[in-house]
């Protein structure tokens, strides 16, 4: 009987099957940031277990609140920094080199097809874009990952979502995933892996696939996953060129990580996106989704472009295309956070940062920033933010604030208009 990609990865990494469908699997990488890791470190120390299973397989970054905003966040950073030094964790990214984890780690070449990855962050599912099994976990799972290099999961039942058709101009992977979450609901994929297949996915850049997989958790999924292909190989080539004689060889090797045609799925869905319009959320759940056209009367106070969903160079380019030569509305505060120093630097070189600044945006350093209301860009009671982030929960960006999720193109157009609007009004 055929296997799904997730089942193949589990089989290749199985350490133990202690009970029923509990699979303890070996981890290829454990990612860490300064919000969920410090308590893992202090707890391991308190238990007399201040050890790491393999310093080369642990990657750490300070990204949520950086530079530190107060003594508490400074302490969180210090705990991770000291721990990384103590254990010889070479891939530790501190200020000046740090960026949003799910943008930075792929950019550094830390993800490979067939890998198993955990991180104490729910959006770890982003890395499934590379054909990896990557899951968000809590601090205790993270502790065990750090200590022993293993994690326990149930058998990975899979929902296959075949995304077909042709996206209209001004419609992006963010619109696809928002619409999809609207269709299947915030728990439509709980305990399941979502496999994204179909011509639309195969034509997407790695950045767009990461956006797609990033929000799989908003439908409850353990992981979103795409098949590795030549686009994956091209992205990873600077990191793997020593391992393979040619890109064709790498591709041949990576194609072992695709599902068999006769694999068994929990559900298979065809999703034609040809008629899809730009999407936006309303209310406090990511499955509250409408077409932008139905929401144009919503005035916004802030526009935030950034985060692990849409803070990559491709996203900034898309927003800059809309913003070029225009000013944002006087009533709007525009904030953009390039996701990594490389994104920032490339955006500078391409003139994208100047477009943002000329339009009236505030450009921050690479950080998770406003997305979860922990550091900058927090909303006041009753304020509304148009954001390229992934969560619109009540209080997420500040108590009493409302967040509308949308693509970078829609966010840029909204900044100009002062209310939610379609980017086609300002494009070209």
């Amino acid at each position, binding site marked *: 009987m055929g296997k799904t990609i997730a089942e193949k990865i589990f089989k290749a990494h199985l350490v133990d099957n202690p009970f029923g469908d*509990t699979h303890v699997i070996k981890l290829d990488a454990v990612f860490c940031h300064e919000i969920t890791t410090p308590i893992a470190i202090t707890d391991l120390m308190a238990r007399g277990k201040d050890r790491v299973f393999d310093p080369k397989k642990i990657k750490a970054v300070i990204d949520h609140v950086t530079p530190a905003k107060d003594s508490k966040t400074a302490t969180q950073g210090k705990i991770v920094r000291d721990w990384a030094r103590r254990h010889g964790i070479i891939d530790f990214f501190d200020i000046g080199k740090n960026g949003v984890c799910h943008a930075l780690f792929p950019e550094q070449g830390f993800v490979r097809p067939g890998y198993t990855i955990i991180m104490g962050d729910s959006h770890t599912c982003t890395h499934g874009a590379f054909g990896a099994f990557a899951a968000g976990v809590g601090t205790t799972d993270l502790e065990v990952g750090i200590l022993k290099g293993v994690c326990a999961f149930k058998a990975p039942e899979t929902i296959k979502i075949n995304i077909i058709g042709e996206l209209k101009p001004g419609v992006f992977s963010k619109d696809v995933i928002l619409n999809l979450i609207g269709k299947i609901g*915030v*728990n439509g994929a709980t305990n399941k892996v979502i496999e994204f297949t179909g011509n639309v996915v195969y034509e997407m850049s790695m950045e767009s696939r990461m956006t797609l997989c990033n929000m799989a958790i908003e439908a409850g999924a353990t992981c979103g996953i795409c098949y590795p292909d030549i686009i994956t190989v091209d992205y990873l080539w600077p990191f793997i060129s020593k391992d393979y004689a040619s890109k064709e060889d790498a591709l041949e090797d990576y194609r072992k990580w695709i599902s068999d045609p006769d694999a068994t799925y929990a559900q298979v869905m065809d999703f034609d996106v040809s008629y899809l319009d730009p999407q936006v959320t309303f209310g406090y759940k990511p499955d509250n989704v409408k077409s932008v056209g139905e929401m144009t009367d919503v005035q916004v106070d802030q526009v935030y472009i950034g985060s692990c969903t849409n803070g990559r160079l491709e996203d900034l380019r898309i927003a800059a295309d809309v913003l070029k030569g225009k000013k944002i509305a006087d009533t709007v505060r525009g904030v953009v956070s390039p996701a990594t120093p490389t994104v920032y630097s490339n955006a500078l070189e391409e003139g994208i940062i100047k477009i943002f600044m000329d339009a009236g945006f505030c450009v921050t350093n690479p950080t998770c920033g406003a997305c979860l*209301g922990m550091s900058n860009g927090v909303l006041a009671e009753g304020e509304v933010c148009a954001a390229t982030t992934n969560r619109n929960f009540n209080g997420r960006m500040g108590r009493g604030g409302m967040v509308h999720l949308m693509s970078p193109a829609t966010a840029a157009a909204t900044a100009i208009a002062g209310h939610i609007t379609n980017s086609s009004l300002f494009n070209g």
Partner: protein
Amino acid sequence: MKNFSGKVLFLDRSDINTDEIIPAKYLTEVTKEALKPFLFDDLKMDGFSVDKIKGKRVVVTRNNFGCGSSREHAPWAFEVNDINLVIATGFARIFRQNMFNCGMMAVELPESVIDMLFDKYAGKETVVETDFQAGKFVFIAEGVSDEVSFSDEIPFVVSEFDRALVNAGGWVDYADKKY
């Protein structure tokens, strides 16, 4: 093993997320105890106010509880308030695993049973007595007079793995011994 019995807090809503359980602004704390005053700080729902948490030891709620962030601060915020048991129609995966990883319990009951519990017990002084080994809850409504006191015995199932975690008091010691 933790205590899984006591007074019940009913939360009649689905999709209560981890941001509502413990907002991100409190994630700068590096001790669990510091989270104690902030449980459900951002939960806005009809009939709920944070003073209702006082003295409660068990939460009964609807579907997809604990969705959103992976923050284990959510179970910890319960733990430091002596709430070690959440009963729901369904849980988000990470929250559910975090509960058992801490030696706490997140128990799913069928929708019809949860409906019955809300119908019969919400709004009354309700206590749950949990027999973990037997896999049994006893819900007891303590009425103002004998006539309105009643109880129901409800069986529950936790997987062998979850049972092992509860018995071991959590995943760290279990995993360090075994792997």
